[in-house]
């Protein structure tokens, strides 16, 4: 650990990121450019989230990393180990005990509290990017609050599929001003973005952008009066813990069409099982 500066990054880099975070908090939903560094992991593995985590982390923190809700996937394990080694911080898999939570594509099921920080890994921070590839144009669109194109996209969803088919990275409007990409979280998680007690920070390493949501910020998922936003999830209970209200992953269990739905948030699922809740396939061989 002593071979590295605390939390890996040099101090000037951390100051630069910290200044970007403060401006991000001052302008909720606006993407602040920052000089993203090369990290000892490839782009797409959470370099933006890692840099934001490194800039906010203190030695007293307890750090948790989730990847699609799971604490035990490769990405989560390697980032957790990275900060154990370079910052010497304590780590945990329990949502309630963590002070800094880095996440890829999920918001924990358990409500977060004041004093916690949720750091998102963001691949494409610009919600308008697939509609307008030029950064110079999307900057202009944000400055003019010109978001008609996004509504056209959602409308085309309805005209083609009969409903808004966007199911993840569902665009939101922050405090009635900036349209923001909440990172590829399922739209099931969108209602948790607003009025959250914790600070939410978003880091996009390859795209060199940081943005933020202060606590208790108004975040509205874009929709139409006659096609209101709906937070959807697979229509099953969790096969392991029986939870009816958590986001589920579909797991293929054999070649004969067997499948099961389990909570994507492993900590939530394990805590429920430990409390005695059980699902239909818990402890049984998958059919």
């Amino acid at each position, binding site marked *: 650990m002593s071979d590295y500066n605390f*939390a890996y990054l040099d101090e000037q880099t951390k100051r630069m990121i910290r200044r970007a975070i403060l401006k991000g908090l001052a302008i909720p939903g606006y993407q602040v450019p920052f000089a993203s560094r090369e990290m000892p992991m490839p782009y797409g593995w959470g370099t933006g989230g890692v840099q934001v985590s490194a800039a906010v982390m203190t030695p007293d923190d307890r750090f948790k990393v989730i990847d699609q809700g799971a604490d035990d996937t490769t990405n989560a394990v390697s980032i957790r180990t990275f900060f154990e080694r370079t910052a010497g911080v304590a780590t945990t898999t329990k949502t309630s005990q963590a002070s800094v939570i880095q996440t890829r594509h999920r918001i924990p099921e358990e409500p977060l509290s004041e004093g916690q920080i949720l750091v998102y890994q963001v691949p494409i921070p610009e919600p308008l990017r697939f509609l307008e590839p030029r950064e110079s144009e999307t900057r202009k669109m*944000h400055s003019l609050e010109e978001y008609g194109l996004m509504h056209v996209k959602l409308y085309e969803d309805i005209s083609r599929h009969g409903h808004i088919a966007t199911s993840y990275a569902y665009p939101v409007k922050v405090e009635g001003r900036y349209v923001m990409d909440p990172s590829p979280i399922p739209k099931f998680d969108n209602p948790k973005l607003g009025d959250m007690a914790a600070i939410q920070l978003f880091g996009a390493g390859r795209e060199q952008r940081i943005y933020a949501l*202060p606590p208790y910020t108004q975040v509205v998922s874009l929709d139409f009066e006659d096609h209101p936003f709906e937070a959807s999830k697979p229509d099953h209970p969790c096969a392991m813990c029986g939870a009816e209200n958590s986001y589920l992953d579909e797991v293929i269990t054999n070649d004969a069409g067997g499948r099961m739905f389990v909570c994507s948030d492993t900590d939530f699922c394990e805590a429920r099982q430990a409390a005695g809740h059980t699902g239909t396939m818990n402890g049984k061989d998958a059919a």
Partner: protein
Amino acid sequence: MQAQTLSGGFADTATASAVAFRQVMEAMARPGTIHMVTGAAPPAPLSPATGVVLLTLCDPDTPVHLSGALDCDAVRTWIAFHTGAPVVGPSHCVFAVGGWDDLTPLSAYQIGTPQYPDRSATLIVQVDQLEPNGAILSGPGIKDTHSLSLPETRAFQLNAGHFPFGLDFIFTCGDRVAALPRTTVVMHKGAV
């Protein structure tokens, strides 16, 4: 004089600035809340909290404006040695430091551009008192309302009216900090 210039920095830069930044970030994310910071012993008239904020956020990339009594040799040399930040006029600064009366008029500072509203100054205001009473604050980061003793209310209302442009404020008093981003709606006590 020289000993004073060389001393007063963070004992352990990496951890001290990490701890200090968390307090400043909490202050900015929850406008009106007051947080304690430690670790810096800058020369007068800088307060310890002002020193901590400067050490945490300033470096050669961030031009600093010193106003009023703060623009003295002791402060200039201390900032130069510990942060390397160039000292400039108000129209080019990223951070401005001073008492409230010295920092006005606020029109002197950059408030950002339409495409980059983040390119705006942050004002570090040294105030004589910092208490959770006085002006009523609401907006992002605040559940219902917070109260904070502000030097005035009108200037902050005008600043918030420029959103997404605007200045952000960090108030320091002794070893305490609070912050007021441009999003916060400030109302005079008794106006609600």
